[in-house]
């Protein structure tokens, strides 16, 4: 599907046509900029060029250079300046050209932004968004999933949508949120996933998970691109094994939707946690611990994890495919769990 220019959709009015995940992000940004003059975007190459992935294409022409700002290559300054602007009533949306580069702003995010409200009662409603994730042969520095690095930073929120509808509804919710939000956009989904946007002011609240597929024998708890891997595996397991697999799409990682996690555990009693981030220190450990603390007695099998191997993500296709979890890995792990 060719990428559309926002100017084709006057007033940011929701369209009933199917659009890509990427277009859904852009539509969400445009609607919020239209709605609230305090919303502005800043980042590298986002203005005239429209961003490395064209997420902001057309926005500068529509909203002007003041509200779509091309910055120097300075992630710490981008995030720091956003914080300062947010203290004085603005709603900045920062783009990391690749989310891998958010590490350059780690200090600013974890020490300054995350603590601002708590230590000094400073409002800091900023969004830091950017393309994340692998399966795209991007190599070690254009494929990362650094969400767990921010998971233990009180004061931040983390969103990681898997569908185009959620991408739009959650970027809008993130911009309106009074807390700082890290917003991960999986680049594998940008142009592969499409959806039809609900009419009206479509908001998907942060912190609420979504049952992507109903099932009764086994639960897969996951988020982002691996939601689609899990759905693919679930179809195969139903077809070949007669297994009924539930897939829970977390959507937000901070806060985690404990209620949805507990509900699916009580329903199926067997849990596989799947994520693309590396296994050690990944969010799968946290989810497993919460299940242990909240609903241990409802388990009929140990919670298992399918995640990336503990290596930097390599570039060559055979290497990347080996390191990252694939649908076939989820099928194999699910069979092990079902047979336990």
């Amino acid at each position, binding site marked *: 599907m060719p990428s559309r220019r926002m100017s084709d959709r006057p007033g940011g009015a929701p369209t009933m046509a199917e659009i890509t995940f990427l277009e859904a992000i852009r539509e969400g940004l445009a609607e919020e900029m239209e709605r609230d003059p305090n919303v502005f975007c800043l980042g590298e190459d986002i203005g005239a060029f429209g961003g490395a992935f064209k997420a902001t294409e057309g926005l500068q022409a529509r909203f002007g250079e003041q509200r779509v700002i091309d910055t120097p290559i300075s992630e710490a300054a981008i995030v*720091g300046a956003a914080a300062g602007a947010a203290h004085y009533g603005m709603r900045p949306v920062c783009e990391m050209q690749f989310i891998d580069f958010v590490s350059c702003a780690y200090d600013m995010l974890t*020490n300054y932004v995350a603590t601002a409200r708590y230590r000094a009662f400073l409002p800091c409603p900023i969004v830091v968004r950017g393309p994340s994730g692998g399966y795209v042969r991007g190599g070690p520095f254009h494929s990362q999933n650094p969400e767990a690095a921010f998971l233990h930073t009180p004061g931040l929120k983390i969103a990681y949508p898997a569908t185009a509808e959620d991408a739009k509804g959650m970027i809008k919710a993130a911009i309106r949120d009074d807390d700082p939000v890290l917003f991960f956009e999986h680049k594998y989904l940008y142009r592969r996933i499409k959806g039809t946007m609900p009419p009206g002011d479509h908001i998907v609240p942060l912190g609420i998970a979504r049952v992507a597929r109903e099932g009764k024998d086994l639960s897969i708890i996951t988020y982002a691109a691996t939601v689609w891997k899990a759905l693919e595996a679930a179809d195969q397991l139903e077809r070949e094994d007669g297994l009924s697999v539930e897939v829970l799409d977390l959507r937000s990682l901070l806060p985690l939707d404990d209620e949805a996690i507990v509900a699916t555990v009580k329903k199926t009693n067997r849990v596989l946690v799947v994520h693309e981030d590396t296994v050690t220190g990944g969010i799968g450990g946290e989810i497993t611990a919460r299940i242990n603390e909240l609903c241990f007695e409802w388990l009929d099998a140990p919670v298992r994890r399918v995640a990336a191997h503990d290596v930097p993500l390599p570039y060559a296709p055979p290497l990347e495919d080996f390191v990252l979890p694939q649908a076939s890995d989820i099928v194999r792990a699910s069979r092990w769990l079902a047979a336990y």
Partner: protein
Amino acid sequence: MTVPTTSNAMAPPAGLARPQLLELYRWMRLTRTLEERLVALYRQTKVTGGLFRSLGQEACAVGSAYALERRDVLSPLIRNLGSMLVKGAEPIEILRQYMAKGDSPTRGRELNIHFGDVVDRNFVGQISHLGDMVPVMAGVTLTFRMRGEDRVGLVYVGDGATSTGAFHEGINFAAVQRCPMVVVIENNGYAYSTPTNRQTAAARLVDKAIGYGVPGVRADGNDVLEVYRVTKDAVEHARTGGGVTLLELMTYRRKGHAEHDSQSYVPPGELEHWAATNDPIDRYVTRLTAEFGVDAGELTAIDDEVRATVDAATDVAEASPPCDGPDALRGVYANPAEMPVLWYRGEASRAVAAHERPAGWGTHDG
């Protein structure tokens, strides 16, 4: 150490009348008296954490902050107590902060002068990661520029913070965006124990301005009128659309990094030399009496009033309540407003404690 140039005798800077000259004196005196009181409280173990002095640097803090309007914003450093006072911080707030009181501006969440007020008095509390406030102030002032507001931001860094990436990114960003911002480097000779010549190979920190394409001005930081004059110029330059200015104020840190620091690394005689020959308050008193016709009695009256103010604030601060432990869980997020207390401190956690499913243990359908 670079010895600052001696100020030439001059008329009061434009716009400063006699009451303002005395006001500058009062702010410097209040800074020093309040810090001396904090030292006494520290020795009585009534100060919870470390104590950071600005002895000998009062002119930098006071003279620069005095060049700002109330609507302008500043971000202080640990040695800018004087700037905070000029901008409207109250001695009682400082005392409560240092004593970690429950009614302190941060309700015990942060130390010393690390607090902010972006609603009325307009200062943004610093964090300990040096240089980070430069990008933040770039964003504050970017906002003013975007909204067409007639406001300026001033951010302080030390000689040490000029070595950070955040300083570089922030001033460069602000310069490109022509933000109405003033960056003040208070060069006091030391970053903790590290002398400036171990911090940079640059002969003068102000020379970095050239690299950012902004004006740079170096001034005697122990001459409060000179500090006021150069800052006022930079503020007006920013206010009228000129963008960023980098100021380097030459001063000297007469106390250690914090009160615990013995300053063993300082060459013999250096501290005594600065105390005897280049104290900013002594220098200003000399000028006030010799050049501007101020009577010594007027200054003594200010000293007495300042001491009474600090005495009264100390009494109230000492009687302030301590913090309430569970309040620590409030205010991390706007929503939720309070974080949950962990299970070992209170209510048992749901299914595990309630043994919701004993009959079904170990089987799928049980």
